[in-house]
């Protein structure tokens, strides 16, 4: 897993754009059974607007800054 950082000295692991998108994709699949790209497409189309507070939707939506192609 690209983002399974293990540093313990107080340093934080900075994700590369690729690692960020992989993390976003993984969580979209985990919580919503869809790819990150599909989540972005459906989010942008307003398909989650009826209840954006659903726990599984909110958790993926909060990661959107990692998933956008212009992330970084």
């Amino acid at each position: 897993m690209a983002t399974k950082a293990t540093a313990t000295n107080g340093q934080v692991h900075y994700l590369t754009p690729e690692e960020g998108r992989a993390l976003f994709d993984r969580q979209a699949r985990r919580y919503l059974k869809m790819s990150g790209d599909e989540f972005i497409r459906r989010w942008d189309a307003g398909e989650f607007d009826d209840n954006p507070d659903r726990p599984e939707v909110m958790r993926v939506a909060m990661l959107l800054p990692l998933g956008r192609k212009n992330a970084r």
Partner: protein
Amino acid sequence: MAGRTPAEAVQNFLGPLQQAISCVTRTVLVSSGYHPRQDEEPHLLTLGESPARLNSNPRLFLSVTMHYHVVEAPGERGPWKVSIAAYLYSLDDEQGQEILAFHWHPRGRSSVTSPHLHIGPGAGVQYQQLQGAHIPTGRVALEDVLRLAIRELGVRPLRRDWADILDRTQRAFEQWRTWPAPDHPLGP
């Protein structure tokens, strides 16, 4: 948290959070970066392994995501500082059902933009209207949630000095935050 450079400001922000997290899990924070952005998109931090399994019986799982901006700031809060823009802290049960979730997402699509608490299905609360309700809270620090997990929900801390660490890192956070101010009624 302030710094002489954007990178230092972010390190001064994330370092204490990593210390706080280390009280309950060995997973580490991952972040999207420290460069100031012109497009108003936030940076974010989350757990490298999420949700993170906590040492408890029954099992609990922690999720943490925060949005932040790296901005220039005057005076002792500068020349660079980190400004938190949103947070999500949640605790799930072993089946992945949400028990509690503390949210603040002022720029999201939700109609509720102030800090609030969700009681999830994992809490087993029978009162149906609470499912999905937004229970108002003040601004909640990550340390508040970790302390709740340890003191009230049976999570076993991974280090003996957890109380000192959480007190110290939360004090630092509250010293630098701009709302609520320390002398605000919702403040410490």
